[in-house]
């Protein structure tokens, strides 16, 4: 069980799934697989087959017109981690849930739904998790407005 380097990972990935190969890049020392939101589910399934048995983190980033979904996968056998990123348009912010692949996605997807308003299809129990059930809006969106927020004076 030795630690795999990024290059080895790329080779391994390309050998197993040639169609994913061109989407692979390296950013700040981490392997990143940038996929289309339509193919996201497929790519994640492939990577699970490849040996990525842990879904460490799922989160989203608000880029204005689009949301970027970030999946952090870890493999115990290869001892390596990598990212899968996919962009979904803001207008139809919806993506297939991964709870059936990795149960750890359960609460994390609820959290993204809560704070970003991205809907995960086929999620068993998609409710707000951190905020109250009657909360209006999704606070981590950049355009979230709440009268109760007091802006901090810009000292820096």
């Amino acid at each position: 069980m030795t630690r795999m380097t990024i290059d080895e990972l790329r080779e391994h990935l390309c050998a197993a799934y040639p169609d994913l190969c061109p989407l692979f890049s390296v950013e700040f020392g981490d392997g990143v697989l940038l996929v289309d939101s339509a193919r996201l589910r497929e790519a994640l399934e492939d990577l699970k087959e490849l040996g990525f048995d842990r879904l460490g983190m799922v989160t989203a980033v608000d880029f204005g017109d689009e949301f970027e979904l970030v999946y952090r996968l870890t493999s115990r056998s290869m001892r390596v981690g990598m990212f899968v990123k996919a962009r979904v348009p803001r207008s139809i912010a919806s993506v297939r849930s991964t709870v059936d692949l990795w149960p750890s996605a359960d609460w994390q997807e609820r959290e993204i739904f809560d704070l970003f308003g991205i809907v995960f299809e086929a999620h068993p129990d998609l409710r707000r998790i951190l905020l109250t059930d009657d909360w209006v809006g999704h606070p981590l969106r950049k355009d979230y407005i709440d009268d109760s927020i007091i802006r901090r004076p810009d000292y820096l």
Partner: protein
Amino acid sequence: MSAECRTVVNVGPSHPSTHGVCRVLVELDGEIVRRAEPIIGYLHRGIEKMAENRSYLQVVPLTDRLDYVGSMYANWAYCRAVERLAGIRVPERAEYIRVIVCELQRIASHMMSIGSTGADTGAFTAFMYAFNQREQVVDLFEALSGSRLTYNYVRPGGVGADLPEGWVERCREFVAQHPAAMMEIDDLLFGNVICRARTKGIGVLTPHDAIGWGASGPVARGSGVDWDLRRDDPYSVYPRLDFTVPLGERGDCYDRGRVRLWECVESCRIVTQALDQLEPGPVQAEGLPRLLAPRPGDAYDHIESARGSLGVYLVSDGSVRPYRMHVRSPAFANLALLPMLAEGHTLSDLVVVLGSLDPVFGEVDR
């Protein structure tokens, strides 16, 4: 008994053994838990949103308040992400100091967890004994950073200040006495036949579930999942240090507790080695601008905290503020196991299982 006979009991959000503000809706059939649903978010303070309006350095105090039992971890994980993003090289002495404080922090945090196992099972005295050990670590940290709880010590590029005079000796003293004190607490708690009966075979987590549910830290290692970032994804100076990763076998509350116990002893070894290898030098990277403005991109880095792999995901848009910060919280992932682990046990076991997952709600809710 039919399903109609179920009683719904609300545990929390302010309950002596939820370790913070967690609410657990429990469906009971007599005393047997049929369904336990944790309801979290009572301490959701929006730290991730706040970070978007702070400069990179100003976020560090916020990370203190994430895992308030082990502030150093969140500091360090955040700083590693910033350093990766901005390409900062940290001086060696600073790395050693970070390892030392984080291993001490592991002791402090595990003391809290082991002690609260005592409190959950009703042995409050063991909690006091464990807490006394924690107080000594807190004293050491106070000498370092001036604060007892929220240290703000690990900063991007190094640490806040060099070790004060005489600190190394005090630290050695503490580390020397700690394993013996640890054994005393072990005798008082896990040596007690009632405590063993209360924790053995309770809340069994299989390795398969541990991996699938993203459990990490002592919770996963208690089930025999041999995964420790310090060894498997080595960071900082850990490759130069010799330590073993204690593993459990059955994955019950007892094993999780024992793993924490042995981790404390291992931490003492690590601290001793790190103190031996510590050499004079700068503790802060030179030439850092007052306002960091990393190039656009995103970076993730994680460390092994007392609760598991604590990761920080940072997105930069090139400005002086993070565009987005996300904390991958181990306690959040571990707590999601509660419904599975508590089912079929009694209400008394529920609090023990919850305690053995060692959630810190600052980190769970963020």
